[in-house]
């Protein structure tokens, strides 16, 4: 459908003013909201994510596209809710206790929303107990943790250990990221995945949630 391609292309160039009228047009053409979401908005964000992965575009371009995605979602969200369409899964994210740096975490949240996930952002300086309690109360399938300081990284292990202690390890997966964190560290503490950047974090969450789909 031509209109869906137009939506995706408009999103790819970060035209946030252009996306909503196209979404309205698609609805007027009788296309159901879920199809507009999947084949218009998310398809566009997937292309953006791939271009970012191969360094064809860089972060600000991705974020301009995300803003256009949000503009489209503002139109679709009430319709999706009415239609009972669920998200791809709930992800609880936050910067770990002792860390006030939240830009990286915010970007991951933006990209996750762009990929169709429901994101519960706990903000920064989040204690291990809070990560687990919020994930349980929101029935989240993934906890995403960010740290920028080497001194705050151990909180990530506390979360992993707490999930183990509460026998939630298989039910709630963990992904970690941030400047001092690495794939090795993820393995060391028993986290399920590591995201080098926001695109990789989204890919990681998609992989982790594939089992729940």
């Amino acid at each position, binding site marked *: 459908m031509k209109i869906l391609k137009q939506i995706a292309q408009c999103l790819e160039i*970060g035209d946030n003013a252009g996306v909503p009228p196209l979404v309205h047009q698609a609805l007027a053409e009788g296309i159901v909201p879920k199809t507009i979401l999947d084949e218009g908005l998310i398809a566009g964000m997937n292309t953006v994510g791939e271009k970012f992965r191969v*360094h064809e*575009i*860089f*972060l*600000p*371009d991705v*974020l*301009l596209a*995300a*803003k256009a995605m*949000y*503009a489209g979602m503002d139109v679709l969200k009430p319709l999706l809710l009415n239609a009972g369409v669920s998200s791809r899964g709930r992800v609880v994210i936050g910067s770990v*206790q*002792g*860390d*006030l*740096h939240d*830009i990286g975490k*915010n*970007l991951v949240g*933006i990209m996750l929303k762009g990929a169709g996930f429901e994101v519960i952002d706990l903000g920064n*300086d989040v204690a291990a107990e809070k990560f687990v309690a919020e994930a349980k109360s929101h029935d989240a399938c993934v906890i995403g943790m960010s740290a920028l*300081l*080497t*001194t*705050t*990284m151990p909180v990530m292990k506390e979360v992993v250990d707490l999930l183990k202690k509460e026998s939630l390890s298989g039910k709630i997966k963990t992904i970690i990221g941030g*400047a*001092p*964190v*690495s794939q*090795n*560290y993820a393995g060391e503490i028993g986290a399920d995945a590591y995201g080098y*950047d926001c695109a990789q974090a989204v890919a990681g969450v998609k992989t982790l949630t594939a089992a729940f789909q």
Partner: protein
Amino acid sequence: MIDFPLSCLQPQEAAVYTALGLKSGSRPSSRSSVLLQQALELFKTCSEPLGLSEAIGKDEFADVFSGQGRNAPDPPLQKIFPRADSLLLFAFTLGPRISEEIKRLFASDDFALGSVLDAVASLAADQAGRVAEEWVERQAAGQKNGALPRAFLYSPGYCGWHISAQEKLFARLRPEKIGITLNESFLMTPLKSISGVLVAGPAVIHQFSEVYPFCAHCKSPTCRERGMARSA
């Protein structure tokens, strides 16, 4: 009194693009260039740079450095500061307005401009550390014959110096005087603030070859490069 003119703090465009992940040899899109210009304008209007420093003796600093006794075993600064010519506790902030502006931009879904402004502000705060280092070097150069002393800023939270040492650093320096406060996790508000100790002395005291366990988790190991480059 260290002066922090905005012209000295404003980062180079290339540095901002690199901080945002633009690969070497790539060109930013025209949209990104526009965003950067907007961010630099906001940086000029929202920044309120203020710094504070105070000389401290080695014995007193040993107490500040030990903090709550949570430092990594045998961290580099433990060997560096006793060999210094002088030590200055230091704090700097870009002020609250720029952090508020970044938060406002994100809250209004203007994340692209928000993230560019955040990168600009982070680089500017780092640059303030270099401005302070150079100021200390100029002061020290006028007082000493022979090899030019080198000054480097070391901060709690990095290189094995536990962030909880901020408590003693703040108790001594009182950065509240320039509007910086510490939360219970020892992090500073406004966010675009830096603190630490300026260690001045012969370049050789800053150089170390040991690889520490915490180095494995450090993705910006500039400690060695900066020492080598500036001591050359």
